[in-house]
């Protein structure tokens, strides 16, 4: 489990990733490879962070944040995902962290959509006559402030759930820990569902999910 200081750094890293994805600069801090490795360095195990950060980065690269597209928020999600991977350890930890990262990235993407809808309502105040410099500045910075709140909440919730998963998933801990193989089978459905979300066509998403499941099971059995 991370110490208090490590938790503060993880929180800062997640919030920075959340803000950087849209509101603040896009300086690369919102990329899973960067935020995930930073989380690994904070937790003292960049080796365990690497596979999770790398796979989440590849997942993130397949979507482009152009126009009004909904994209997964992999940068913020990589922070709790790496926390799970490092905390649980081994192949099971990596898989558990990855599956959690995929799910959290999708939820993060949805939280951005909700924020953008709310931004639309807030910025509608500019349509009324009598717009002033103060009003423009206040409204714009309020939107930034709400993105900050969103990033803090998503990171805190993610780290909280990560702590639960570390306790649940660590071998030898109550309620008994889980073998890697069982974990793999348990985590295949959410992982494939999240991968399928990348495909706008639901029919193809099913095929994609079936293919990945078949590939993973084949790799496990053979």
């Amino acid at each position, binding site marked *: 489990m991370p110490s208090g200081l490590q938790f503060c750094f993880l929180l800062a890293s997640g919030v920075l990733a959340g803000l950087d994805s849209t509101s603040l600069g896009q300086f690369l801090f919102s990329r899973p490879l960067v935020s995930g490795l930073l989380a690994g360095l904070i937790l003292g195990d960049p080796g365990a962070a690497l596979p999770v950060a790398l796979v989440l980065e590849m997942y993130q690269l397949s979507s482009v944040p152009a126009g009004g597209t909904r994209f997964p928020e992999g940068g913020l999600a990589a922070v709790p995902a790496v926390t799970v991977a490092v905390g649980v350890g081994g192949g099971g930890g990596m898989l558990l962290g990855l599956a959690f990262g995929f799910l959290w990235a999708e939820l993060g993407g949805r939280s951005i959509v909700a924020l953008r809808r709310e*931004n639309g309502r807030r910025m509608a105040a500019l349509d009324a006559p009598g717009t002033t410099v103060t009003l423009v500045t206040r409204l714009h*910075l309020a939107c930034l402030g709400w993105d900050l709140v969103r990033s803090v909440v998503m990171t805190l919730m993610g780290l909280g759930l990560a702590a639960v998963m570390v306790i649940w998933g660590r071998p030898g801990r109550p309620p008994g820990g889980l073998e890697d193989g069982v974990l793999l089978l348990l985590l295949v459905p959410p992982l494939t569902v999240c991968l399928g979300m990348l495909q706008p066509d639901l029919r193809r998403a099913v095929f994609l999910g079936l293919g990945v499941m078949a590939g993973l099971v084949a790799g496990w059995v053979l």
Partner: protein
Amino acid sequence: MGAPRNRAFVRLFLVQASWNYRTMIGGGFLFALLPLLRGMGETGREEGGEGPGANPEGGGHMEAVMARHGGHFNSHPFLAGLALGAVARMERDGAPPEHIERFKDAVRSPLGSLGDALFWTGWLPLVMFLAAVLLLLGFPPLVVVMGALLLYNIPHLMVRRVTLDWGLALGSHAPARLREVGVAHLIEKVRDVGMGILGLLVGVLVSVGPGLTVPPRLPWLAAALALGVVFFRSGPAAGRVAYRMAPIVLILLFVLGSRL
């Protein structure tokens, strides 16, 4: 215009903060434009007493200008400075409002698609693939992260600054400057190199991936590089397939690797 220009440049980093489905970056565009409008109150048209920045708290001409620029606008965030500078220049030169509106309509899509192609599907994947290759080859994570941040952000910051300056200097002629410097050609080159590095990444994963040792390594690496060349030669459709397949291939490799 030095100080207002610097303030506008800093505000451009927040241009997407109020992004929404109705006006997109329109609110952020106006937020970044404000220092330039107010700066004009101290120079240029202020000599005639009619500058857009004559009243920084709104009212009269300033209110009309703000009403015009708070509506819908979109662009790639890194290239938004070009439109911002050009609009500020046109306002300063007293261009008719309908002319400025037509200019904004005309540059919206090109600035979006050029920026997406150059950064989101060009420079960004290239830097990320290169960072992944270096990490898998055993370079220290902190060094790779710092290197990636530098490699990505130096051109990023330069593009933001230079395009803002072009807009301010050239006004409505600024977009032509993008053609002159050959941005379209640059995009192709960046994507070519990116695809080669993707092939390199696949090869490195196959040959030295965590827990995965498939002898002999050299033929696998050669095959992966050949695959990269095929993608490079067959055009963007194959590139898209490669990008889509990359996460699945990686997951399979890691899962298999963790079991071997």
